[in-house]
């Protein structure tokens, strides 16, 4: 009855194609046999996929990105979980204000956040270091983790905590034995979103690192700005395929 109009369906289909277009367009370019970015004219090659495994450039950046993403996603999830549970348990009068505060990095323009974090890291001497980058990423991704965890907690029966306390559990015991197991999916979602966000973070990363510590987005950025290495196409294809696979797998689960 609704959503069956021909024109609307056609336009929606066109919009969907528009969203997928640039992702599909990249694929042929990754198989070019040439050294520069071009359509493969009859000659196909995997040389740019092989180039990804160069331990000095692409592979090093993948390693750095993985390390930073793992560290910052775990830290962000832990902080967000503590914060969310604290809010849920204590329901402080300042709750709205505090939530607004921790969600700030989503609202503030990324470039302004980048300048602020640049300032901070310059003051404490952590510019262009892994700890400095992890700190910046934690600040930028923690709001997403907080949203996921507050969402999970809002669906949790408040009486569960009271029941645990009532049966003799201390507050810490009830957090560990009752609250955390019951928001485990929310925790996982928070961690996963943080991981992806940190892995892809580019705006702040470009400000606070880039000479000693080069993440994958930073390396892609350099390539896009300077010489359009077809390896970017190869790595894009891998990332697109991985994302598509995860989404399709999750869809088929539900």
């Amino acid at each position, binding site marked *: 009855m609704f959503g069956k109009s021909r024109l609307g369906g056609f336009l929606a289909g066109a919009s969907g194609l528009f969203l997928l277009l640039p992702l599909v367009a990249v694929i042929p370019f990754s198989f070019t046999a040439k050294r520069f970015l071009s359509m493969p004219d009859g000659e196909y090659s995997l040389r740019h996929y092989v180039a990804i495994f160069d331990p000095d450039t692409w592979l090093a950046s993948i390693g750095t990105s993985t390390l930073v993403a793992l560290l910052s996603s775990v830290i962000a999830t832990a902080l967000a979980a503590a914060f969310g549970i604290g809010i849920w348990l204590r329901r402080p009068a300042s709750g709205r204000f505090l939530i607004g505060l921790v969600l700030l990095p989503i609202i503030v323009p990324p470039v302004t956040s980048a300048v602020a974090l640049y300032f901070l890291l310059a003051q404490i001497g952590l510019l262009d270091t892994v700890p400095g980058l992890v700190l910046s990423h934690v600040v930028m991704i923690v709001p997403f983790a907080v949203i996921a965890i507050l969402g999970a907690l809002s669906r949790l029966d408040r*009486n*569960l905590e009271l029941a645990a306390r009532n*049966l*003799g*559990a201390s507050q810490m015991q009830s957090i560990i034995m009752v609250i955390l197991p019951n928001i485990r999916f929310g925790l996982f979602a928070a961690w996963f979103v943080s991981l992806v966000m940190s892995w892809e973070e580019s705006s702040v990363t470009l400000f606070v690192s880039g000479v000693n510590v080069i993440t994958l987005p930073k390396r892609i950025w350099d390539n896009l700005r300077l010489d359009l290495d077809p390896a970017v196409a190869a790595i894009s294809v891998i990332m697109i395929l991985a994302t598509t696979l995860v989404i399709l797998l999750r869809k088929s689960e539900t």
Partner: protein
Amino acid sequence: MQRAIKHPDPRPRAESNIVPMAGSDPVRHPNSVAAEVRNLRKTYNAGTPHAHEALKDVDLSIRANEFFTLLGPSGCGKTTLLRILGGFEMLTSGTCRIFGEDVSRLPPEARPVNTVFQQYALFPHMTVRRNIAFGLEMLGKPRAEVESTVERMLDLVHMTDYADRRPDTMSGGQRQRVALARALAPQPKLLLLDEPLSALDLKLRQKMRLELKSLQRETGITFIFVTHDQEEALAMSDRVAVISNGHLQQVGTPEDIYEQPQSRFVADFIGESNLIEAKVAGVTGGEASLDIEGFGKVHAPVAERVEDGQKVWLSIRPERLVLGSGDGQERAKVTDRTYLGNAVEYHLHVGEHALTARSPRGGLRGRQDFAPGDVVSVGFEPGSIKVLLS
């Protein structure tokens, strides 16, 4: 007959194979006080424009081994009182003792009190068995004891077959039983029940009433039960406290509360009542003569001192009004007749007063049937008029 067959006592005491809580301590003191609150006040948001007094100067003692009910409309403060006893809320002033010990400052985990929550609050990530074991594990009981107690509890609530299921796969009644077992397992001195039957349908609710009552008798644990359902309160309790607006209105046995209400609120909230304004027209001995405008004089016993001309209220249960005709006293007009199955209800107008009378169906006690428009006489059964000063 039908009813007796449909609702037999689920577990006659003679057949009970359980000796729960045997030798388990201070619970069996016939006349000791289980819980006591003195001058209890609870104010939310004290000192702000949103301050709200949930409890105002409540004094209450609950005896050991008692099935005690806190009854009142929603928002009256009964749940707040229960939460203060459980340690989930801090009292604003006054004291709260449980078996003599002042618990006002104790956190919930340090109180010998367990609770059955309204929506049960079973831990969804644990099996029934682990749910029941939780409190025992928190007490640091040895494994063997935990296991044997859990088995005994499963048996007590007839849930042995469901021991390894998770709560979300069970019906409301089953969850209810698990919640009871979980709260009883650590052998609390006091069991708090927060409207535990409200989530069940009518039939199951009636069945669980009987089960709760017999569980209380078997375990000998003091139950404090919160409900807004007066029928539930009358059916199960040893004693009932009626609360309204943060004030304790009346405490007594179900019979006391129903037969001898001490205020208009209680008379109206428990069952149905005709409340009629009257003036005292003279007192002789323990009996007062009362003048009802547009009706005439009636006589009723008064317990408290009243003065001539004082305004009082009379409370009369609808089933204790006797309608008649042909005696020359017809002053009430029948405005409506409602057939209720086991009774017939008549709505009457007498002067300015609207009254409700109910007579059992089938002309029992020789009562006649009337139709709207009939003019009838109204009489009161002896002792049916209760004089209320407030």
